[in-house]
């Protein structure tokens, strides 16, 4: 098998054509090749959720996805959440105002999951929020402020 392969991938609205090692993870591709370091790596085996990104409209673990698997895909990372005029995504604002982050390492993945949740279920219960983010580990907050931020966001229309 070839050690490298060409891929064409759209990230945050911009299309890249790159030749990548076949063993390169999507997370490393985003971080090291595209310099999009907002996506974090916490466990490298798909448990902690820090590396969660959006791939073709669904959340995905970029540490368990190979860059070559993303060939042809449409990807959104935390760097793509901002509006064109530079304003924060409402979910980012709710996280900030609700003190929903401490060290901030889980935050990018948590935001991606939270945004997907409210897209699919705009009025979740507290339990549904906890269920939805149960695949994103946070070691600092005890989750309460995160849950509150998402519930607060659900009270408002998301852009």
């Amino acid at each position: 098998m070839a050690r490298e392969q060409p891929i064409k991938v759209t990230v945050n609205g911009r299309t890249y054509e790159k030749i990548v090692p076949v063993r390169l993870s999507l997370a490393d591709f985003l971080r090291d090749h595209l310099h999009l370091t907002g996506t974090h790596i916490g466990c490298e085996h798909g448990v902690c959720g820090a590396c969660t990104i959006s791939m073709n409209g669904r959340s995905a673990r970029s540490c368990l996805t190979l860059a070559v698997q993303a060939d042809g895909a449409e990807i959104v990372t935390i760097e793509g959440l901002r509006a064109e005029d530079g304003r924060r995504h409402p979910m980012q604002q709710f996280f900030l105002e609700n003190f929903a982050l401490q060290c901030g390492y889980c935050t990018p993945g948590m935001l991606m999951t939270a945004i997907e949740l409210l897209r699919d279920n705009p009025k979740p219960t507290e339990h549904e929020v906890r269920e939805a983010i149960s695949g994103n580990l946070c070691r600092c907050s005890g989750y309460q402020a995160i849950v509150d931020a998402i519930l607060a966001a659900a009270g408002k229309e998301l852009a």
Partner: protein
Amino acid sequence: MSDARFVNERMVGSSVIPDEAIPLVEGDGRFLNDIKLPGMYHVAFLRSQHAHARLNCVDASEARRLPGVIKVLTGEELLGKVDPFRSMPNRFSGGESVQHWLAVDKVRFCGEAVCAVVAEDRATAEDAVDLIKVDYEPLPAVTDPRQGERDDSPLVHDSCPNNYLIKREYQRGEVDEAFRNAHLVVKRKFRIGRKQALCLEGRGCVAGYRENTFALTVWMSHQLPYVVRHYLAKHLRIAETDVRVIIPHTGGGFGQKASIYPEEFVCAWLALTLRRPVKWVEDRIENMVASTHARDQYIELELAADCEGRILAISSDVWVDVGAYSTYLWSAGMEPLQTAGLMPGPYRIEAMRYRTRGVATNKTPVGPYRAVGRPSASASLELLIDEMARRLKLDSVEVRMRNLIPVEAMPYRNANNLVHDNVNYVPCLKLAVLKSDYERQRSEQRNSRPNGKLRGIGVACFAELTGLGTSTAVGPGTLLQPGRDAATLRLETTGVLTIAAALPSQGQRIMTAMRQVASDELGIKLEDITSITNDTATAPYGFGTFASRTAVFGSGAVIKAARELRQRILAMGAYILQVPIEELTIANSVVQTVDRSKSISLREMAEKSYFSAKDIPQEINQGFEVTSFYDPKFGSFAGGAHIVVVDVDPKTGQVKIIRYVAAEDVGTIINPAVVEGQIIGGIAQGIGEALLEELVYDEAGQPRTVTLADYLIPSALEIPRIELHHANAPSAALGGFKGCGEGSIIGALGAVVCAVADALSRRGGDIHEFPASPERVLKGLGVLPSDGQAGRGSE
């Protein structure tokens, strides 16, 4: 740009939204792994697969031939060039342990670094690690501290007889007499498992060569920048002034990033030797075996009580499995000395005795982690208090009320020689009882459960010594006596105030807290204050962030410096405005007379001070930069009470938390929302410690929990909504502040394990080993056979 959720007139006490969180929420955080330097090499470590083995031969020839590999470094090559980590002398030391940065002659735990590979990229470095051949000769492993202290045990270090790294015996008060005269003596053996901090971001460093004017610049995911600088210089045998340490955004610390480890020091040596920047980032498997572990105690605790449930004396025997080396800086004494020494917690205890040992084993070293020692000690004592209460037919709240140190008895010196200064233990318990509707909880518990679940209620009170000044040891018996930190306040030419201190944040919003304090002291608007806390090139000396000290020290130093700076500002204002100094005040970044008839903005004044210095007499223009050191001298106790209601499923052994109420005294609060986050986060880690988290080793010393699929930390589903209340009493420190980062994990472990034990007691069961996994719960109920390790002692 700053606004606040609840704005008071004073910034202290307001939930100011922290500017410092903005890059983190926008994906612009700069964590260690985000740093890239031109020409940077990458490092990977070959780690021991054996718990204990002789290193006969390391053959790296094939690895060295792999294209892209720059260097393979072995322990032998470093001998004589750098100084290894010798265990810090401690008054209670057993033998000495010497930790080479890369193993020499022997490996002593699975995960110990043996070789470092430098390559052009990390993947190549890891490929090369796989090509290194090591001839290990396995040796018998020590894996249990109670076996390890025996005369016939194999030794982890030949220099450590009976594998004692730490040993202490202590007695105060008439212990024997108290036990002889007691109405009741209860005794139990407890076992608290091994766990780890599990920062979501592991350790790591980038070591730069000749960046700016420094021979060595190290970016490190760490809590103590100046301490790192001091020890880098010392062990690399270079000048401290040649070293700069910068702490990037840090993905959790919790004490795990407060120790000195070999890997970062290897990288620093490599950068200086190769004259190129190198980077190493710990992966999760490395983090599970190469970053310090915590807890791991065997505790035999005995309590003497009178007929009314008052504690007359306690006596404990503690064994801590401290792992293969004395953790560098803090020594192996952390868990052993604090578990036994802090056993009394918030209770009035006149007589106590303990014997405690830190026994070396062939496991990862145990180091500092949130609330060292206290959670295990507190949980043991709380469980025993409940046992006493059951025997005396007393309610668990009532028995605690009878033993807590009341406010009117303070300052109170406890049997462990610590002084409880001003802390609301009793008011916190009363508040928790009220808010949890405790009486109703008990009456509901008495009614049969239609769903077949066993309901348990746990009550735990705790004490946490915070903000330790120079007169109180952080690590008992060690030479380390931190307790003095500095802050520099500088009014910039634009009138903006910069606060510099070496107190990095791992999410505690230290910068925001110091800005709030400075704003109140100086009358400068919050948005005109900036803060930098992570760089030895800009910060005055400080010990760093650990031991619930940072808000106390940072704020104290800011207050002292601000008072001096304020005088300088007012003196210049008086000269420029030609009014008496007493008529001046500073508000909203403007110096003005009380009647507001004359004023000058700080911006204008600062410009004049720097750019029109000839117009102002020197004795008035003293410079708008002040550095102050602060030492609170003693520590301040924080404390609280937690009440937890659980349902235990007797079929599956699963524990579900139904209600969680916490009442805490954390002194004067700077930013309520931030403090709430600290406390709730601590509770979550305590719940994990009580129910889920355990690092398991087999009898050969092989770690069985090296992924997050094996080592479980709580998700949002395991953590209930926490109801948090406050009964705060100000401390004697400047500003009345106490630390709040650690206390809540103590209360959480105690309250949850007591709730589980209470539930099991409804069916005649009991539990002494934690975490309370489903298996242990079922053993405690007699559904599964018990292995009889911990439990009922002789009475």
